[in-house]
C-alpha cells in the first residue's frame, strides 16, 4: 500500500495516506472521532451594541490569511464560536469582524493578548455602533 523507498514517498502514496486518515464523511461510524490534540486556535465571544446589549443575528466574518473566510451568525444571546482551526494556523493571522444592518461594521477585539502560537480558544468582543 505504501511505496515509500528510502524515506521518499511518491505524491500518490502521500495522498493515499491522507485519504485513509480523512475519508470523506459517508458514515459516522467509520470516521475516527477527531482528536482534541489536532485542534488549534478558535475564536469565541459576544457581539454587543454601544450600550453593552448583546446583538443577535450579527454576521461574524472570520478571515484566515491566505485561507478561508468563515461567515457565522451570532445567536439569540449574541454569542458566536468559530470552532477550532488547524494547529498550523497562526492566531495573529486571523481577523474577526462583525456587522449587522443598521450598524457600522467593526473588528473583533481579543480580551487577552493573542500570541502567534496560541492554540487555545480566544475570547473576543465585537462592539457595534449604530449608524
Amino acid at each position, binding site marked *: 500500500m505504501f511505496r515509500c523507498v528510502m524515506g521518499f514517498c511518491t*505524491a*500518490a*502514496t502521500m*495522498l*493515499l495516506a*491522507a*485519504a*485513509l*486518515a*480523512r*475519508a*470523506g*464523511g*459517508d*458514515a*459516522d*461510524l*467509520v*470516521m*475516527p*472521532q*477527531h*482528536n482534541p490534540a*489536532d*485542534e*488549534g486556535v478558535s475564536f469565541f465571544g459576544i457581539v454587543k451594541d454601544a450600550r453593552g446589549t448583546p446583538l443577535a443575528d450579527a*454576521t461574524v466574518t472570520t478571515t*484566515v490569511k491566505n*485561507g*478561508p*473566510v*468563515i*461567515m*457565522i*451568525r451570532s445567536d439569540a444571546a449574541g454569542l458566536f464560536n468559530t*470552532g*477550532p*482551526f*488547524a*494547529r*498550523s*494556523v497562526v492566531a495573529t493571522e486571523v481577523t474577526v469582524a462583525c456587522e449587522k444592518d443598521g450598524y457600522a461594521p467593526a473588528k473583533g477585539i481579543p480580551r487577552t493578548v493573542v500570541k502567534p502560537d496560541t492554540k487555545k480558544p480566544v475570547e473576543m468582543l465585537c462592539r457595534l455602533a449604530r449608524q
Partner: protein
Amino acid sequence: MLAWPRAGFAAPEPHLAAPEPRLATAEPRLGGRVLSPRGEPLEGVRVSVRKEGAAVTVTVVSDHDGRFALPADVGFGRYAVAVRAVGFALKSPASFVFSPATERMDIALAQTQDLAAQLSNTEWLTSMPGDFEQKRPLIECMSCHTLERIARSHYDATQLVPVIKRMAGYANNTTMQRIQRRAVPRKFDDAAVSKLAQYLASVNLSRGPSWSYPLKTLPRPQWRATRVVIHQYDLPRKSIAPHDVRVDADGRVWYSNFVENFLGRFDPRTGEHKEFDYPAVKPGFPTGALALEADGGGHLWLAPMFQSGLVEFDIKTSTFKIYRLPSNLSTDASQQSLVMPRQSQVDGKVWTNDVSTQAILRLDIATGGFESIDPFKFLAPASHSPYGMAVDAGNDLYFMDFGGESIGRVDAKTLRTTLYPIPTKRSRPRRCMMDAQGRIWFAEFAANKVALFDSQKDAFKEWDAPTPHTYPYDVFLDRNGELWSAGMASDRVLRLDPATGQSIEYLLPLQTNIRRIFIDDSARPVTFWAGSNHGASIVELTPLD
C-alpha cells in the same frame, strides 16, 4: 441545443402519459371503490394496475369516499392489480379485465399477515426504540438495502461487529443486485462500531422470534395527498440503478446508472429505452456513476465514482470523452461523486470532488488538467465531504458539506473558500438547486429539513419535513415556487409551499429508494421524476391539483 427545463424554455407537446383534465365521461375510465375487511370505504389506499405484458404500472389513490379513478391512458385490457395500505393486503381482484362492459372495479382488502414486510425505512426508524444518536448510523445503511433486512437479522452484538465492518467495505454504489467492494478499506472507530452492534442487536431478532417493540405505522394519505397519479416504468434489467434523473426538452428521461457503466435514456411516451456504454478506465474497480448534469453546450457529464475522473457525453454524436485524473491526484481510493459543468462556458472549467480527500477538484476542459482545492485545510480535522453542487453566473462553486454542517463557496477566480455554517448543527446537507435568483435550496439529510440559503444576504431559512425520519436527499423548486423533496427512507414525495409552510406528502406504491429528483416545469401540471434506485424503474408523479 439541449436545454434543461430549469433554464426555462417553451413547453413541448403535452405528455401523453400525464392525465388530461376530462369533462364528464368523454372516455370510459377504470375506477371503483376500496373497501376495508369490514366493508367500509378507505381513504388513502394506493391502487396499482399493470397491463399484461407491459412495463408500466399506473397508481392512483382512493379519496375520502374510498373512490378512485385511473387515468385515461389506462385503456381496455387485462390488468394485474396491487394495493398499498399498511396493515392491509389485497383480497380481490388479483387481476381484472377492463372492457366496454365494465362498470367498476371494486377493491376488497383483508388484514395483512405480515405487517413487518410492509414497513418503510421511516416506519422502522420510528418503531425502533432509542434516541436519534443511536439511530443515526442507520441512515447510511439505507443507501444499499432496506432497514427491514437489519430488523429481520439474527446476529447478536458480537456477530454484528464483523458484519458492520464488512458493510463498510462495500462501495457506496452497491445495491443488492450489484454488490461491489471498495479497493481501499476504510478506517474504523472500534468504539462506534461496538456501540452500533449493541444497538442493532437490541432491535433485530437476535433475542427472540418477534420484535421487542411495537411496529408503528404512519397514517394513510388524506385529502390533497390522494389527488395524484403515479406512473412507474420498469427498466429492462433488474441491475439498472437509476440515480440522477433529468428530463430533456423532448420529454426523454436521461439517467445515470449507479452500478454499471451506462448512461441511460428512456422515452416514457414510446417506451423506447437506450443505453450508451462508456469504458471502465480502472478495470476491477466498482463501476457506475452518481451525478448526471448538462453543460450549456448540449453535453452531459457523469461523475464516475471509483472509476475516477470525469465522463462527458456528446448527445449529437452519441460519443463519450473520458478525462482521467493525473497520477499525482489518483489513488485506489479516488472517488468522483459530483460534477457541475453548468457554467463551463464562462471559463472552460468543470467542478467535481474527490470523496477520498474531502476535496474539490476543478477540470480545465481545454488542457484536461485537474487542480485540487481543499476547502477545509485550515480547519481542525473533522468530518467533511464536499457533495451537492451549484454554480452561479460566474462559475463560482457552491457546495454542500455532506460530512458536516456548512455550505461552501469557492471563488472561480481566486479559489478562495468561504464557509457558511448552517443554523442546524450536524445537519449534513446533501444535494441542492440554485433558483433563478441565485438562491440555493437544499436538503438537510441528517436534520430532516429542507432549507434555503440566500448568499446575497447570508441568510438561511429552514423547514422541518412533516414526517420524522424522512432524511431528505434532494430538493427541487418548481415554477410555481413550491419545493419538492424525496429520499431513501419514507417512500413519500414532499411538496412544500415555502411561503406558508404547508405541505403535502404523496405516498408511492412501492418501497422506493430515491436520490436526485427532477420537476418538469414544462408539463401541465408540473411533473415529478425520479429513479427508483433499487427498483430498476423510473417514477413519474403527477399531482392532480
